[in-house]
Structures are given as structure tokens and as C-alpha cells.
């Protein structure tokens, strides 16, 4: 087990480094001279050149990447060209909002989708199964920002019971969270349903029924545990999707989170902030996926065994070869 954890964390390092390289390369090829953007139009050519030298912008790619990495380790994400403040401060001020939205959406989708998928599976082809399937299909086919607009139309414009913009309390979360969750709910429901269908046809479930256990115990104690294993892996991916959803929905609901900030920053050509934000989002999503993967191994003993076996066979091969 510890071996697996160690190996999985080790595998995450090149991915994280890769993300920094990708973002840095984008930054490197972005049009516009950062020194010029910092100093503004009034600065002379000499002043710009002096700042370029000072910032190390005249160094070759590899040197700049290394110093960029060094900066990252110190928490330096560049400069906001507009306010002149460190990009890190601007990003961190807004990151919480976006994560709260994405987190709330993931929790909401799990709470809705897993029961829906289970009921759908144990009552296959019933009315409730059909309704669930149709809703999941529609949820998968709608852009989340349009669903959000439709919610505003109904709950804010028509009924007038929910606020359509900002984020000042629980009430303000309802529509953005539904909008962001729709895709995840559809995905997790389908996954739970098919996984559950597969499990409840297996012999050990039939055995449990024959033993005379109540249907509730069979489903909750025996089937659920195995059925939920594949579901957990999609939750990590769905978190990444939810962060993307939050970025778009912040625009719909005028929520001052990182997503809205990044979109505004692109339009203002405030590129260091954009790339800093992209990097932070990518790092967080990688970490969440890493945690989900570890959790998955913790829950599913087959993964542990698989690793143990492969480690053993590797040793054997090494012995044979040596």
C-alpha cells in the first residue's frame, strides 16, 4: 500500500512539472513585451531595455524556465500589469470563491447522482428509471451556462425568488451550483447506474438474497460497496469539469471569482495573471485527482494486490535476469 502511494505521488511530479512547462511555454510565446506592459507607453526604449535586463527577459528559454520554476517555489506568479500588484495576491483573493463553487457543486452532484443512479438500477425500466435517464441525457446535452440562464429566467425573472447575480449567501449559491453540477450529475448518475446493474447481477448478490437478507441490506451493505468503486474515479475527473463550469458560470452570475478574473484579464491583455491563474487551477485539479486516486486504492483492495503482484513478478524477473 505504502508502495502504491509512493509510486502514485512520484508519477504526479512529472505531470505537475509538465503543467509548469506548458504554461511557461505559452507565456514565453505570448505576444507583447512584459517590460513594456509594466512600464506603459510613456517609458523610453532605454528604460524598457533596462527592465528587460533586470527581469532576465533577455536570457535563453531554458534559463528563464529555471528561474520561473524558482520563482514558483517562492510563490512568485508574476505581476498584474494593471494594478502592479503581485499576480499571486490577486489570484489567491479570488481562488477561494471558485473552489467553494466547484466544491459545493461536486458535493451536490454526488448527493443527487448516486441515489438517482442506484434507484434507477434497482428499478430498471421503471418510470423513475426512464425519467432519470432522460434527465441525465438532457443534462449531458446542455451547455451549463445556458442552463444557468434558463434558471435565472425561471427563478429570478418569472418567480422572483432567487438573486441572479453576486455571491452573498446560501441563496446565491443555488442556481450557480445547479448550473455547474448538471453535467457531473448526468455523468455520475449514468456511471452509478451501469456499475450497479453490473454488480447486482453477480452471484454473491444472488447468494445474499437467497440467504434471506432484506433487499435494503443486500443493496446497501453488499452491492453498494463494489458498485461505487468505479464511480469514485469519475469524481476526480468531474471535479476538473466542475472547476471549468465554475469559470463559465461566474461570468453568468457576475461572481467575482478566479474564472471571471481570468476572462477579464485576457481581454485586458493582462497575461501573467492569466497564466498564473491557469497554473494554480491546473495544480489544484492535479492534486484533487491524486487524492482521489489514493482514496481509490485505499478502498479497492484489488488495486493493492495488483501492485503487490506486479512488484513480486518484477522482482522475480530481476532475479532471473540477474
Amino acid at each position: 500500500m505504502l508502495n502504491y502511494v509512493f509510486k502514485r505521488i512520484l508519477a504526479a511530479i512529472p505531470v505537475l512539472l509538465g503543467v509548469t512547462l506548458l504554461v511557461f511555454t505559452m507565456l514565453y510565446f505570448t505576444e507583447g513585451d512584459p517590460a513594456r506592459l509594466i512600464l506603459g507607453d510613456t517609458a523610453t526604449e532605454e528604460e524598457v531595455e533596462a527592465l528587460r535586463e533586470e527581469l532576465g527577459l533577455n536570457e535563453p528559454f531554458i534559463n528563464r524556465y529555471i528561474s520561473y520554476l524558482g520563482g514558483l517555489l517562492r510563490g512568485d506568479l508574476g505581476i498584474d500589469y494593471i494594478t502592479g500588484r503581485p499576480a499571486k495576491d490577486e489570484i489567491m483573493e479570488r481562488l477561494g470563491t471558485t473552489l467553494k463553487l466547484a466544491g459545493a457543486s461536486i458535493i451536490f452532484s454526488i448527493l443527487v447522482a448516486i441515489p438517482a443512479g442506484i434507484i434507477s438500477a434497482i428499478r430498471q425500466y421503471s418510470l423513475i428509471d426512464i425519467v432519470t435517464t432522460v434527465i441525465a441525457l438532457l443534462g449531458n446535452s446542455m451547455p451549463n451556462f445556458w442552463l444557468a440562464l434558463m434558471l435565472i429566467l425561471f427563478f429570478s425573472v418569472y418567480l422572483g425568488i432567487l438573486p441572479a447575480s453576486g455571491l452573498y449567501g446560501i441563496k446565491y449559491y443555488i442556481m450557480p451550483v445547479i448550473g455547474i453540477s448538471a453535467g457531473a450529475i448526468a455523468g455520475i448518475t449514468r456511471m452509478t447506474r451501469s456499475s450497479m446493474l453490473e454488480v447486482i447481477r453477480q452471484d454473491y448478490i444472488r447468494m445474499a438474497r437467497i440467504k434471506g437478507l432484506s433487499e435494503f441490506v443486500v443493496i446497501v451493505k453488499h452491492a453498494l460497496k463494489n458498485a461505487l468503486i468505479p464511480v469514485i474515479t469519475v469524481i476526480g475527473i468531474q471535479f476538473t469539469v466542475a472547476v471549468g463550469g465554475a469559470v463559465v458560470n461566474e461570468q453568468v452570475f457576475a461572481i467575482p471569482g478566479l474564472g471571471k478574473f481570468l476572462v477579464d484579464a485576457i481581454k485586458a491583455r493582462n497575461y501573467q495573471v492569466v497564466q498564473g491563474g491557469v497554473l494554480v487551477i491546473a495544480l489544484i485539479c492535479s492534486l484533487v485527482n491524486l487524492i482521489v486516486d489514493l482514496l481509490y486504492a485505499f478502498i479497492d483492495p484489488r488495486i493493492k494486490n495488483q501492485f503487490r503482484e506486479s512488484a513480486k513478478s518484477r522482482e522475480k524477473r530481476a532475479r532471473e535476469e540477474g
Partner: protein
Amino acid sequence: MAGKKKGQVRQIWRRLKKNRLAMFGLVILVILVLTALFADFIAPYPYDLQDYSSVKQFPSKAHPFGTDNYGRDIFSRVIYGTRVSLQIGFISLAVGALIGTILGTLSGYFGGRTDTVIMRFTDILMSIPKVVLAIAVASTLGPGLVNAMIAVAISSIPNFARVARASTLTVRDQDYIEAAKAIGAGNFRIIFRHILPNILAPIIVQATLGVGISIILAASLSFLGLGVEPPTPEWGAMLSAARTFIRDEWYMVLFPGLAIMVTVLALNLLGDGLRDALDPKLKT
């Protein structure tokens, strides 16, 4: 060989025909493609015709979906939007599918270090939300239609790479590959003549579902103002422009979104049906 292929296709088609939802999706899709091709004949007005005497008109006989704040006919714009959205969806997906499939096949076929490098690369792309990746691309290349398509294409690479890799792994060790190797076929020939045709089925399914995802992603980018520029009748851009008028002119935000939903729904129904038809074992 050709005869066998034809028989397979016919069998898949027979299975697909029995799936009513998939056929429904296919019919809608055909209608949408025809709409895109013949938009000039179907749309009652040019998409950019501004008529300031009939601004923000409620849906009526003359304007089935109403008119927008410039007096443009929303129905005509939605019709022309079919052309734009389908184009973006199909082209960007085709590019992403091609690159992803080649990477995935190489990864599965060669294994070892090639596999590790390519898979880590897809891990990197997958760790960034698609919209955020597109934002990053837009920040490097600048906003606009072509750049949005590049962003959408890049974001669809990892899915195809994974599917192609997994399928390649299942056919790689089969006898006919072994036989091809034995008679001295090169890696290039084996991959393109023997592996690719045999892993096509899951890739076609992925592509059908992927076009829908690409259309939604492109619409999201336009909605954020990073995709298609306003005068072009693209559904996401139309929604972005209509958003301000949601309080009184609900029809301006309703119809472009419905168009996206119907299109993606048709693709999803067809994709699900294709998956079942190509691999009946998977059907639950």
C-alpha cells in the same frame, strides 16, 4: 477482406436501425446538416440584416423566434448558426481526433518510454479543465474563431489518445499482427494497415460523442467572448449578446440554447446507439 468489411457494416447498420433513439438522433442530425448546407434557402432573412423599425420583437409569424436588439431575425441567425457551430464542432474534433488517435496508437504499439511520455502528456492536458486550457490558448494566440478551434482541438486530444491506446493494446498481440511482422512488414505499415482499421469502432463512437462536447466547448468560449466575434451568428456568441436582455426578452436567450441542446442531444443519442451496435456485449 472488402467483402467481410461490407458485411460487418451492414450488420452494425441493422443493429443500429433497431435502436429507435439512435435513429431519431440520426434523423435530427441529417436535418441539421441539410439546414447548414441550405441555410441560404431556409432562412427568411439574411443573418446580418438590421431593421431598426422592428427591434426586440416578440416571436410572431414574420419572426418565429423574434428579433434581437438590432432588429435582426433570430430564426435566421439560429439557422445560419447551424453552419458555424457544426463547422467548428466537426473540424476541431477531426483535428483533435487525428492527433489523439495517432499518439494513442503509437503509445500502445511501442509501449515503454514512448508510452510513458505520451501518457504523461495526456495527463498534463487532462489536469487542466477544458475551458481553462482554452483560456490559456486564447491568452497565447489571442481570441478569435480559428484560435478557439485550435483550443477545442487540443482539449479533445487526450480522450482519443486514451481510447486509441487501450484498443491498440488489445489488438497488438493478436496473431494477424504477429503474422504481419513475420512477413517483414514495417512498424509504419502495421500501424496504418493493420492496427488502425481494427480500432476504428471505439474511435468512431468517441468521435460522435466528442463532436457534441466540442460544440458545447466552442459555444462556451464564444459566450465568454474568447471565440467567434459578435457579427457572426454563432449560438454561444448570440447567447452572450442576449444575456443583457434576459429580463424582458426571454426569447433571445431561449432559442440559440435550444439549438445547441438539440444538436448535442442528437449526437449523444446516435453515439450511444453506435456504441451498442458496435459492441452488443456492452449493452446493459
